[in-house]
């Protein structure tokens, strides 16, 4: 099934390319239009890995609403996606987990217009179910006797955590600086650390094994998620349709269900 979709997508790209053979004005390219007036062909979305669940749901919905439309995703770290785009990977939509990687794309002149911040993620304290160490807030990260995990400062969640700790005036004493959120959460799930500072969405995704404790101090370091359509989008109609869906009440509700918050 999947390879069939990819083939269809390639065919659509080829058609689009031949259709605009007369000039390089992207807007002049005729986009195939379905019987119900909605977009058809293949839509390619590059999105931050943390968006995997929500965007997959939204993509299925868009496909259901538009006959002849196929949505394919490339979920990965934002920096990897930005690199792929600047190296010429064809895509219609880019959704980044932070402004910095979006800037890489806009600075390269690849975005169609200004990016829109469509959602945000905020740090939360993850504790094992039942909160055995009785963690209540950010100040507990200074307690020597607890086993604590934060993200390494080299990765985005670690950089955000440093900002939050600085703003709160807390000097954390972590036992480990994890290479990513997932690794930090694993240690919470196993009960090997008493608390970890991760994203709210990750706490939701981890299910019942992990409880989240909100961090008021984190409000100053909210992580905005921008998205944009791309100037060279092979399927700009579908791209706009997807962005509209994400920004709609329906899309925003799906994001909030997953632990994201309104922009």
């Amino acid at each position, binding site marked *: 099934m999947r390879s069939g979709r990819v083939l269809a997508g390639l065919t659509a790209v080829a058609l689009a390319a031949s259709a605009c053979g007369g000039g390089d004005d992207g807007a002049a390219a005729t986009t195939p239009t379905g019987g119900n007036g909605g977009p058809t062909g293949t839509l390619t979305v590059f999105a931050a890995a943390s968006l995997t669940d929500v965007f997959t749901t939204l993509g299925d919905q868009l496909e259901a609403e538009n006959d002849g439309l196929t949505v394919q995703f490339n979920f990965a770290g934002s920096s990897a996606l930005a690199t792929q785009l600047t190296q010429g990977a064809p895509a219609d939509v880019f959704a980044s987990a932070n402004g910095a990687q979006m800037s890489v794309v806009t600075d390269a002149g690849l975005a169609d217009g200004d990016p829109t911040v469509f959602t945000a993620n905020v740090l939360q304290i993850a504790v094992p179910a039942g909160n055995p160490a009785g963690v209540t807030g950010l100040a507990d990260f200074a307690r020597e006797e607890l*086993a604590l*995990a934060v993200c390494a400062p*080299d*990765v985005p969640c670690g950089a955000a955590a440093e900002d939050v700790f600085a703003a709160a005036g807390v000097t954390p004493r972590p*036992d*480990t*600086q*994890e290479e990513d959120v997932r690794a930090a959460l694993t240690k919470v799930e196993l009960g090997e650390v008493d608390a970890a500072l991760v994203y709210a969405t990750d706490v939701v995704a981890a299910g019942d094994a992990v409880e989240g404790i909100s961090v008021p101090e984190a409000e100053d370091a909210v992580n905005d998620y921008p998205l944009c359509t791309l100037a060279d989008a092979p399927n700009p109609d579908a791209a706009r349709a997807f962005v509209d869906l994400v920004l709609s009440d329906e899309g925003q509700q799906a994001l909030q269900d997953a632990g994201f918050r309104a922009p």
Partner: protein
Amino acid sequence: MRRARTPAPLLVPAALAVAFLVLPLAGLLVRTPWSQLGALLTAPGVGQALRLSLVSATLATLVSVVLGVPLAWVLARSRARGRSVLRALVTVPLVLPPVVGGVALFLVLGRQGIVGSWLDDAFGITIPFTTTAVVIAETFVAMPFLVISVEGALRAADVRYEDAAATLGADRWTTFRRVTLPLVAPGVAAGAVLCWARALGEFGATITFAGNFPGTTQTMPLAVYLALQRDPQAAIVLSLVLLVVSVATLLLLRDRWLGRGAAA
């Protein structure tokens, strides 16, 4: 001494193998930002991570030798039933994804682990996120290399020397110490080198079980991985440091220590 020329059916794949193994290293060298080398090398934490890597890999090798050589002897010489099952079991870490190994170590030695929770309750000892955990993770992943190598050497060794020792009044332990072990010393040395190299490059089990904290548990491979998230150039430099130090160590050992054994 003149050697016969290598036949073409061997030469071509051998050349391909060399290219396959060496080209990525060459790529690393080509892409090294030589102008920033000094600054990147003297960045805080590099020396610390390197020292921790060397110390923990060496300790893991020592533990592996102390425990692994007797295990190899049991696998090679014991006539107990279930030996092949035992061999399969102890070589599992070779095929286990190291991250899974790290999780498995948590389940046994973690705070909530089978043994770990007892250690915590009885002695207040917690292992995860300590340098001890680094050594344990590296030992777990690297010891099978030593065991396999030493077992092979023991199987190849002439057991009649052990008979000769017995007729000279040596009990099994004395025979092992004064005859068997010296006879398989080259195999032990080769196994220890393999083990050390594997421990030095260990990433998955270490970052899972020992976590990552500069000075305590952040070894070079962990530093390289994290640098890759932030600054790929720094990652290349760190890789280069690890590469140079490990190759230099191995060459030094080969000359000083393995040379005689390998020639014998």
